[in-house]
C-alpha cells in the first residue's frame, strides 16, 4: 500500500472537540478501492467540501457516512456516543440529500413532508408547511409530486432539512436542477444550520461554497486506491 498524501486542509483526526471523526476509511465499489486511508474530523459549525472528479467516490463517501454503505476498512466515530449505531439515545441526527430525492410521486408535497416529520421527528419547531415555505414551494404543497418539475421536487426534498435541528447534513449535489433563488434559499438554511452548531458535508460541482463558513476541503484524488480505476 502506498502512503496516502495527507491533505493540507484536513484537521487532525484526534482533535478533542471533534464530533465526527473518520479514521483510515477505505471504500470500494465492485471490489476496486475508490479511496483508501481517508481520515478527517469535523467540529461543531464546520462544513466540509468533498472534491474529486466523477467516479472518485464522493457519493460513496457520503453514503458511507450516512450508514447506507459499509466501509471496507476504517471507522466513523461520533464523540456523542461510542459509535454504536444501535444505541438510539446516542444516534446522531443525520439529514441526507442524495441523487434520488426520496419523494413519492403519488403523494403531495405536504404529505411527503408529513411522512418524514413522523419518521424522523419534527423538532425544529417548524411545521411541514413552514418548511416548504422556507424553500418557497408551499404554493404547490397540495399537488402530487409527480406533477412537479425536477427543481420543485428537489426543493421539496431540501425542505426536509428544516424539519429538525440535525447534527449533520450530508448533501450530495444539492443544487442540481435548482435555480438561483433556490440556491440562495438553501444557503440561507445552511447558514442557520451552521450557526446553530450543525455540521455539513457536501459535494457540488457548482460553486456554492461561498455560503458555507469555516469551510474545509478534501480532495479524493489524494486518497486514491492502489489499483487503477476502470
Amino acid at each position, binding site marked *: 500500500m502506498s502512503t496516502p498524501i495527507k491533505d493540507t486542509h484536513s484537521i487532525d483526526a484526534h482533535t478533542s472537540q471533534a464530533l465526527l471523526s473518520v479514521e483510515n476509511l477505505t471504500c470500494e465499489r465492485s471490489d476496486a478501492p475508490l479511496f483508501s486511508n481517508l481520515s478527517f474530523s469535523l467540529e461543531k459549525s464546520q462544513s466540509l467540501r468533498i472534491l474529486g472528479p466523477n467516479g472518485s467516490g464522493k457519493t460513496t463517501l457520503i453514503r458511507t457516512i450516512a450508514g447506507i454503505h459499509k466501509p471496507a476498512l476504517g471507522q466513523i466515530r461520533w464523540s456523542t456516543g461510542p459509535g454504536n449505531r444501535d444505541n438510539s439515545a446516542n444516534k446522531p441526527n443525520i439529514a441526507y440529500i442524495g441523487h434520488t430525492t426520496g419523494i413519492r410521486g403519488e403523494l403531495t408535497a405536504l404529505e411527503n413532508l408529513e411522512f418524514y416529520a413522523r*419518521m424522523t421527528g419534527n423538532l425544529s419547531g417548524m411545521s411541514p408547511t413552514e418548511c416548504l415555505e422556507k424553500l418557497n414551494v408551499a404554493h404547490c404543497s397540495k399537488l402530487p409530486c409527480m406533477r412537479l418539475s425536477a427543481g420543485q421536487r428537489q426543493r421539496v426534498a431540501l425542505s426536509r432539512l428544516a424539519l429538525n435541528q440535525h447534527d449533520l447534513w450530508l448533501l450530495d449535489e444539492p443544487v442540481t436542477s435548482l435555480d438561483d433563488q433556490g440556491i440562495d434559499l438553501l444557503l440561507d438554511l445552511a447558514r442557520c444550520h451552521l450557526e446553530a452548531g450543525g455540521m455539513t458535508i457536501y459535494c457540488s460541482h457548482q460553486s456554492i461554497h461561498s455560503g458555507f463558513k469555516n469551510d474545509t476541503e478534501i480532495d479524493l484524488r489524494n486518497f486514491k486506491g492502489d489499483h487503477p480505476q476502470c
Partner: protein
Amino acid sequence: MLITIIKRDLKCVSHNLSGAIQPIGFFIIITSLFPLAVTPDPEALQSIAPGIIWISALLATLLALDTLFKEDFIDGTMDQMFIAADSLYVIAFARIISHWLFSGLPLIVMCLVIAMMLHIPAYTFDALIVSLLLGTPTLSMVGSIGAALTVGLRYSGVLLTLITLPLYIPVLIFGASCISADLAGFPWTGQAYLMGAMLVLSITLAPFATAAALRINMS
C-alpha cells in the same frame, strides 16, 4: 415507525387506486376464465374449484410483489427510511403488511363471490376463508424475500416468479387440500394447523431474510 409506513402506503393507494385494484381484478378475471375454458358443469367445476382459487390467489399475490420495494428503492425513499429507522427489518415488515392489506385482504373478500360462481357450496366457506386467511399472509411474507433479492434489477418480473413460485408450493398444496377435504366431508383442521404453522414460521423468519436481502442491494 411501522404504522407511519403503513399509513403512508394507504395514502399512496388512495391516490393511485388503479394500481391497487390490479391484483384483485386479475384474480377475478383468471378465475372466471376456467368455467369458460374447461366446463360450465357444476360438479366438474366444484371438483377443480379449490385449485383454481388457490392458483389465482398465488398469481394475484405475485403481481403486486414486483413493486413491493422497488418504488421506494428507485426514488430514494428506502435510503431515507433506513437512515431514520436504522432497521430494515421494520421497513420490510411494514411493507409486507401493506402488501397483504392491498392484495391478500381484498382477495379474501372477493373469493366468496368467486366461490359461488364456481359452485362451491356455502358449508365450505369457513374452510375457504380460513385457508386464505392463513395462506395469503404466508405468500406475502415468503414473496417479500424474492422481491427484496430482485429489487436492484430493472426487469425482475420473470426472475421474481422463478424464485418465488417454488416456495409457494407447500401453501398451495395445503390451501387447496383444506377446501377439497371440506368439500368431500372430511375434517380439514389438520391442513389448517399446518398452514398456521407455516404462517408463524414465515412471520418469524421471512422479514429477517428480506431485510438482509435489502441490505445487500443497498450497499
